[in-house]
């Protein structure tokens, strides 16, 4: 596959959106995963005569997905992983890029109004046999 085709493939699989989610080709680790991948399906997609035509590319991928189910799925998963791990993608989705530890997260304590609700439940007769 040519570098141009690699970018086209990345963007078809992970197009991003107007609200700031980057297309796959803008995420360095996705491009690295694609260029370093030895999965034969990538070359097959590149060789497909219709892949050169922008309006037919989507159909090529649909066809490949049908004919090479597991291989195609593995390829997509191998790109989804670096994509959704990347800081800009996490942030575009409203999440933080730092991993869960060591800072952890702050979450709300039990709301005050629930104390009364709990008292009502505790006052119920037992529900065990």
């Amino acid at each position, binding site marked *: 596959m040519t570098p141009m085709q690699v970018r086209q493939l990345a963007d078809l699989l992970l197009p991003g959106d107007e609200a700031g989610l980057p297309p796959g080709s803008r995420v360095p680790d996705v491009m690295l995963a694609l260029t370093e991948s030895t999965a034969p399906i990538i070359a097959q997609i590149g060789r497909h005569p219709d892949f050169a035509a922008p309006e037919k590319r989507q159909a090529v991928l649909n066809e490949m997905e049908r004919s090479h189910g597991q291989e195609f799925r593995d390829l997509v998963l191998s790109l989804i992983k670096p994509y959704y791990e990347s800081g800009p993608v996490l942030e575009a989705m409203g999440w933080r890029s730092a991993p869960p530890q060591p800072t952890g997260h702050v*979450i709300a304590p039990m*709301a005050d109004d629930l104390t009364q609700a709990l008292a009502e439940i*505790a006052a119920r007769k*037992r529900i*065990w*046999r």
Partner: protein
Amino acid sequence: MTRKRQDPVDVVIIGAGCGGAAFAWQLKRRAPHLKIVCLERGGWPDPLRMPAKTMRWQRAIMEDWASNPNLRIKAGGYRGSNDYHIDEDASVFKPLMWNGVGGSTVAWAAHFPRLHPSDFRVRSLDGVADDWPFDYFDLEPWYDLNDEIMGVSGLDGDPAYPPKRRRAMPPLAFGAVANRAARAFSDLGWHWWPVDAAINSVRHDGRDACNHCGPCLTGCISKAKASVDLTYWPKSIALGVELRTIAIARNIEIEAGRASGVTYADRNDEEHFLPAQAVVVAGNGIGTARLLLASGVESPALGRNLMFHPAAYIRGIFKERLDGPVGPVGASIYSHEFYETDRSRGFERGVHLQLSRENALLVQASRLSPLWGEAPQAQLREEFLHTMPILVLAEDLPEAHNRVSLTNTEERDGLPGVKLDYRISERAQKSLDFGLARAEEILKAAGACRTVRVSPAPLTGWHLLGTARMGSDPQTSVTDRYGRCHAVPNILIADGSLFPTVGAANPASTIGAVALQLADHFAGEIA
């Protein structure tokens, strides 16, 4: 292969997980003179390998820290969890476990409910399956002791249980999700309560408080989550129990109807024979049956009656932003409104409803269909940070065709291969459907704009139970009420395999309590 014969010991325990750890500690406490060795196939959990501090924390649960051993093996694995392949094709639920010191509590969610008193008496009360050979109140002191060692956060006064001793710590923080769900339960007039969790809500027993980081199933770096490698094992080792890691028990040698010791392979694959007066097996509902079958223990019920707790999820999608993938995943609030039998529902026994927390972004993305293109990204935009999942656990009843058996192949660990056959009964499916319908009502009451069901949820085989059940009849049970095998009385079992029935609530609290009780009795017997 030549075996090196070792000096004899009094007791060999196989498996350093939930049951094995509790048994070892209690036995050594009660009978300090005994020489006790525990053989554990895996190594110690290594906090440096836990992914929560790294950018790959999301993918770890799909690869090397997957809860399913087959997925870990596929990802290359490591001997912290020294896994074996399980033929799971014929099982609706895929088995989940951790095979190292701490056993599956390394990977667990630490939701820590007890069974109900009725769960021990299903034959007497509901006319199904069998009663346990003892009841809730017999086990209560052991529940209390297990709670003390594990360290429990929670709240007194729950009407779903007989009064319990004061919990050591206050409940864990709720988050927006649990606050919203709790109001919905209350609006419907249904029971809910903060869970008992074996997670520190405040610093306790030398371990930090939970900082709500989220990915509990890939190990807890802060050690806020109790696992038996952190709770029981340091205490047992201090008392003098010897724990040998990367030590795979391959065979229990049986001569004239009695076990004479255990053949095991060490980290260099060298075989040793460790003679012992008694052998205690705690390899979990799959590992125990596998080893006993491989050792030629003859017992008609061995490997049969595999029970999981059939599980399904329903997710509500909300317009408002909720918490996202934070907070201890299985530990917020639960409901036992529908736990006890009500025959008007069309089935015996009941369901456990447990509020869960949102999956990591990558996990959600990898489960969408279609998987690529604009549609899944648009769906993620709508759902991520806007989801409230509820887990429905139903009660399995023992059925002989649901089983663990050996294959004709030899696995890399030198034991025969192991296979699961499991299908959901019509009764269990009815209870799942019932539970899902109730959970849907809650989500609607909480304001969900739509809901999505995953039923059954295949990657929920957390609870591996019943394959060496206790009972009095050697035709239908494998051990007596003290965990002694009918066929070979100096082989004991001390793990989840013992459960004659399973209730609908998570089992580890009961596994620990039963192991303590059995060890206490055994100490009197062997002394």
